[in-house]
């Protein structure tokens, strides 16, 4: 009995760590590239997006895991999409009601979480095959891993494009007599692609050892 418990805590730990690093959705699986490239111009929208994804992933994994024994194989994707769409709509309404400015900044990317492959991938690969607890841990691991990756990308882009972190200025800008000239390109799509490419290369170098 004790051994069983040990194995399961090991499993939970491994599931959690997998999402954070070994199977990080952004850096290792290259899933969910649309929000990764589109909303990482600054930290605040990236963090909001990450939290929304955690919420949706968490709820959909719970629901899918609970009904995994009732699912008909050929209707499962339909069920996944239905579940995900419900929670995304709720997240979207929440942002509109309580964070109207952020909702405007994110624009169509919140409803687009419905087609975010991380969530459907976790429903298919984990929640539909595993018990509730494992699915919850997996959702948290993957969600936090995704959010962390987004924040790294957004942090680099924000500081280089505006000289600020979380909209708080940290570098002295040239227009105020400082030394730092903001790189406008970093806040545009080109900045997202270049930063992501360099980060992926870095992650590959680290994991190659």
């Amino acid at each position, binding site marked *: 009995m004790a051994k069983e418990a040990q194995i399961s805590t090991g499993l939970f730990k491994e599931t959690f760590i997998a999402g954070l690093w070994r199977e990080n959705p952004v850096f290792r699986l290259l899933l969910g590239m649309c929000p990764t490239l589109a909303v990482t*111009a600054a930290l605040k929208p990236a963090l909001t997006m990450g939290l929304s994804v955690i919420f949706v992933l968490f709820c959909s994994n719970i629901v899918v895991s609970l*009904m995994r024994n*009732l*699912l*008909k194989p050929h*209707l499962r994707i*339909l*069920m996944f999409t*239905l*579940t995900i*769409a*419900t929670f995304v*709509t*709720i997240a979207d*309404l*929440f942002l*509109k*009601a*309580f964070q*109207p400015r952020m909702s*405007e900044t994110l*624009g169509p990317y919140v409803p687009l979480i419905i087609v975010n492959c991380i969530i459907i991938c976790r429903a298919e690969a984990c929640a539909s095959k595993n018990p509730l607890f494992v699915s919850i841990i997996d959702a948290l691991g993957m969600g936090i891993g995704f959010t962390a990756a987004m924040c790294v990308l957004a942090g680099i882009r924000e500081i280089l*494009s505006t000289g600020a972190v979380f909209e708080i200025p940290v570098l002295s800008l040239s227009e105020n007599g400082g030394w730092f000239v*903001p790189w*406008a390109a970093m*806040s*545009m799509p080109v900045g997202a692609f270049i930063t992501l490419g360099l980060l992926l290369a870095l992650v590959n170098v680290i994991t190659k050892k």
Partner: protein
Amino acid sequence: MLKIKHFIEQSWLLIVSSFIFGLLIAVTNAAWSPRIIQNEKDKLNNLMTGLISDANNFEIAIEALEIVGSKGKVVRTDLYKALDVNGKNIGFAFIAVGAGFADKIKLVIAVDGAFGKVAGFAVLASNETPGFGSKIKEDYYLSQFKGVPVGKIVLVKTGDAEKIDSEIVAISGATVSSEAVVKIFNTYINNIKEQLQKKGLLNKGK
């Protein structure tokens, strides 16, 4: 009969959960939609107050004014009346929409009570290129419109940006966005003025 049974067996979960999820969304929407509508109203009110600072209250003067756009398309917009503390009409404001560089630009345009001078504009929604087109939200560009006589506005590449006249100096690197704003002004402002004059809502001779 057997077929129906088969279908229900296969899809009962889908049907049941559709209802449950539908209900869930309906409840959330019912709970939060007043807040969402209020947020939109607040934003518009804030922007309008920013443009006509003496205004105490805004009310709809004419609902769904019809404007013929550049391609002959008819768009509708509500015209708001700005009232000061004594209830005197001190200006008008309306939402104007036009094509920008990347996406639609939505502006709030305000004019004075006689519809003679532009009080200014604010950007309600836009998706212009950061660092270039997004500068239509900055003072250099915004202030050029404050006090411009209502009429045709032209965009020029070089000129004195500080001189208030119907020539607006474009933002360097963002000609398309600058032009888009000017175009929105030209589409809406005279059209609305004429409609107001026809309806006799403006004092003549001003």
